[in-house]
C-alpha cells in the first residue's frame, strides 16, 4: 500500500488550547494535547464529555471556537475535511450503501487520483481479511464485517491520523473483544497514529498505549492504562476506570516520604509520591483487589461486616460495611487462601500503603462512578 501521493510531513498531532462552544454550552474547554506519531491513543470518557467533538474537530467536521490543531508543522485548524490527510471510522460505519465493498474502499483513492486502485484496495481487504466480500453491497454484510470494511476504507488512504469514533459500540461483546485485538494488530502493522474515542474503559485499557480521560470538556488525566488505574489523580478517574474504594479523610502529617491520613479515628499511611494534592482534605483510595481480609497490615479497618457476596468465577466479590457509614468493595482471588465468608460475618480489612493513593477531597466522592455503562 505504498503511496507517494500523500503528503509525507507526518508528525505528532497537536491540539493547542482548543475550545468548542455551541451557544452557551461548552463542549470542549481549553484542551491541549499531544499525540505522538504512530501511537495508539484513546480518548475515554462518559457520553457528553466532549470526546466526539474533539475527534470531529481533528477530522475537520467541526471548526474549533478557539485554539489550533496541527500535524507535525502543518496547521490544519481551518483546513477543509476533504483536504486533511486524516480519515475517520464512523460510529455506525457510514458505508456508502449504493457502492460495492470494493468501491467503498476505492472511494478515497479515486478522489485522490491514485493510479493503482485495484491492488491498493485488495491489500486493504486482505489486511482486514475480507477479500472475499469485495463485490457485495454493505447491507449484505454483518455488523462486524461492516466494521472491518469501514476500517479498510479509511486505512487504505494511509492517513497521518486515523480517527475511530466508538467503532465497536454497535457490536456484541464477543465480537468486540475480537475486534479490539484485530484493531490493535492492524495498528501495529500499519504504524499509523490511531485516535480511538470510547466510553468503554476496558476497551481503552486493552488497546491504547496512552489514554486521556475526559470529563466535561477537559482532560482529567492522561497516561498509560497502568498509570491511570494504579495512580489516579482525581476521584473521577479513580471511579471511572474500574472500581474504587474512596475514604474521606484528612492529612495530619507529611513526614519523610510518607503522609499520614486520619479518618474516623483511624490512621492510614500513604507514600507522598501517591498524594495527588496539596490540600489536606483528601479522599484516600484503594482498589478492591488490593484489599485483604486480614488485620495485620499498616492500613487496616477492624470490625467490618459482610453485607453482600457474589461469586464471579476467578474471584469472589464482597461488599463490606465499615464501622461507620461506608461500604467497601473487596475482590478476593479464588485460590488456596480463600476465606469463604457469609453475609453477616465480621471481618477486618487491610492493605499496603504503596497500594494507597490520596486525591483532592474537594470534589464529589462519587464523580465518574456508574457512568461507563451509559451510551
Amino acid at each position, binding site marked *: 500500500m505504498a503511496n507517494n501521493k500523500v503528503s509525507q510531513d507526518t508528525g505528532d498531532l497537536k491540539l493547542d488550547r482548543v475550545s468548542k462552544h455551541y451557544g452557551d454550552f461548552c463542549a470542549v474547554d481549553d484542551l491541549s494535547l499531544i499525540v505522538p506519531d504512530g501511537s495508539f491513543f484513546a480518548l475515554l470518557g462518559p457520553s457528553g464529555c466532549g470526546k466526539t467533538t474533539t475527534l470531529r474537530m481533528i*477530522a*475537520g*467536521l467541526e471548526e474549533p471556537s478557539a485554539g489550533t490543531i496541527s500535524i507535525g508543522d502543518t496547521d490544519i485548524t481551518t483546513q*477543509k*475535511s*476533504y*483536504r486533511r490527510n*486524516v*480519515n*475517520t471510522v*464512523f*460510529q*455506525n460505519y*457510514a*458505508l*456508502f*450503501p*449504493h457502492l460495492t465493498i470494493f468501491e467503498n474502499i476505492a*472511494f*478515497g483513492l479515486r*478522489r*485522490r487520483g491514485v493510479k493503482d486502485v485495484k491492488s491498493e484496495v485488495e491489500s486493504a481487504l486482505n489486511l482486514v481479511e475480507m477479500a472475499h466480500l469485495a463485490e457485495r453491497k454493505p447491507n449484505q454484510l454483518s455488523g462486524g464485517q461492516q466494521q472491518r470494511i469501514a476500517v479498510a*476504507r*479509511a486505512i487504505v*488512504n494511509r492517513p497521518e491520523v486515523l480517527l475511530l469514533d466508538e467503532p465497536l459500540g454497535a457490536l456484541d461483546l464477543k465480537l468486540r473483544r475480537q475486534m479490539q485485538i484485530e484493531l490493535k494488530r492492524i495498528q501495529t502493522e500499519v504504524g499509523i497514529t490511531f485516535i480511538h474515542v470510547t466510553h468503554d474503559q476496558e476497551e481503552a485499557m486493552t488497546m491504547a498505549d496512552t489514554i486521556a480521560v475526559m470529563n466535561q470538556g477537559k482532560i482529567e488525566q492522561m497516561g498509560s492504562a497502568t498509570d491511570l488505574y494504579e495512580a489516579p489523580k482525581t476521584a473521577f478517574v479513580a471511579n471511572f476506570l474500574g472500581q474504587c474504594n474512596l475514604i474521606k479523610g484528612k492529612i495530619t502529617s507529611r513526614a519523610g516520604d510518607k503522609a499520614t491520613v486520619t479518618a474516623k479515628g483511624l490512621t492510614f499511611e500513604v507514600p507522598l509520591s501517591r498524594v495527588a494534592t496539596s490540600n489536606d482534605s483528601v479522599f484516600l483510595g484503594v482498589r478492591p483487589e488490593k484489599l485483604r481480609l486480614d488485620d495485620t497490615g499498616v492500613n487496616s479497618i477492624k470490625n467490618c461486616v459482610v453485607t453482600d457476596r457474589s461469586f464471579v468465577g476467578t474471584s469472589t466479590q464482597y461488599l463490606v460495611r465499615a464501622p461507620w457509614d461506608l461500604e467497601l468493595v473487596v475482590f478476593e482471588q479464588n485460590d488456596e487462601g480463600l476465606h469463604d465468608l457469609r453475609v453477616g460475618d465480621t471481618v477486618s480489612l487491610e492493605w499496603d500503603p504503596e497500594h494507597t493513593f490520596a486525591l483532592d477531597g474537594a470534589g464529589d466522592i462519587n464523580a465518574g462512578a456508574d457512568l461507563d455503562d451509559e451510551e
Partner: protein
Amino acid sequence: MAFLHAVSTGKSATKSVLKSRSLTPYLLLAPGLIWLVTFFIIPIFSLGSTSTMVRPDGAQIGVYVQELRFANYVDAFIANQDQYIRSFVYAGLATILALLIAYPLAYAIAFKAGKYRNILLVLVIAPFFTSFLLRTIAWTQILADSGPVVSAIKVLPFVDELFRINNTSTAVVIGLAYNFLPFMTLPLYASLERIDPRTLEAAGDLYANGLTTFRKVTLPLSMPGLVAGTLLTFIPAAGDYVNAAILGNPGTKMIGNVIESRFFAVVDYPTAAALSFTLMATILILVTVYIRRSGTDELV
C-alpha cells in the same frame, strides 16, 4: 414510488397466502380488488372495445357498432401525430423544469431546514387546497402581457416589444411544471431525507469536495426519489389538457385536448378511445425503458 411499492406488497401478500391458506389476506385484498375491477379493469375493456367500433352509415351521432376495425388506431394517430408528439415534448420539458426547481427545494428541506422542515413541507402541499383549475387560471394573470413577469423580462435590452408568454408553448410548459411540482418534490424529499448525513461526512472525510460528494453520493442515493418524482410528473403531464387549454393557443394543443374534444365535442368515441389507448401504451413503454435504464428497479 407508491405504485411500485404496491406491486411488491402484492407479491409478498400472494406468497403468504400460499403458506398460511388463511382467508384473511383475501378479505384484506377484497375492497381494493373490487375497486380496481369496477373502476379500472371493466372500463379498460370497455375502452378497448370502443376503440375498434365503427359508426354505421346514416346512424345517429354517438351510435357505434363493433367491427374490430384496428385501422382506427392508424387513422387516429396519423390525424393527430403533431399533438401526440407535442404532448411528450411538453411533458418532458415540464419534468426537467420541475426537477430543476424541486431538487434544490427538496435538498434544502431535507438537510438545511432544521425546525422549519414541517412548515416547508406543508407549504409544498398547500397549493392543493385550491382547485387545480383556479391555480392554472391564476397563471394567466401572472404571465399576462402587462403582468409582472413579462414586464420584468421586457426591461432586458434585447427583448422584442412584442414578447409575450401567455398563450405560448412556454406558458403551457410552465403551467405543467408548476402543477405537478409537489409530485416531484415529495418523493425527492423522502429519499433525500433517508440519507444518513454521516455518509456525506464520510465522503468529505474521504477527500470528496462538495460537488463530488453530491455527484458520487447524494445524487445516486436520491435516485429512487428522482425516478419516482419524474414519473409522477411526466405521466400526468403527458395526458394533461387543462394547461394547454388555459395557457396555450390552438397551436399548442396536446393529445389530452384532442381526446377531450373527441369525446365531448365531436362525440367520436372510437378515435378518442384509440388515442387514449395509444397514449397509455406509449407511457407504459417509456416508463419501463426509463426504469430499466436508470437501474433503480431494485432500489425503488
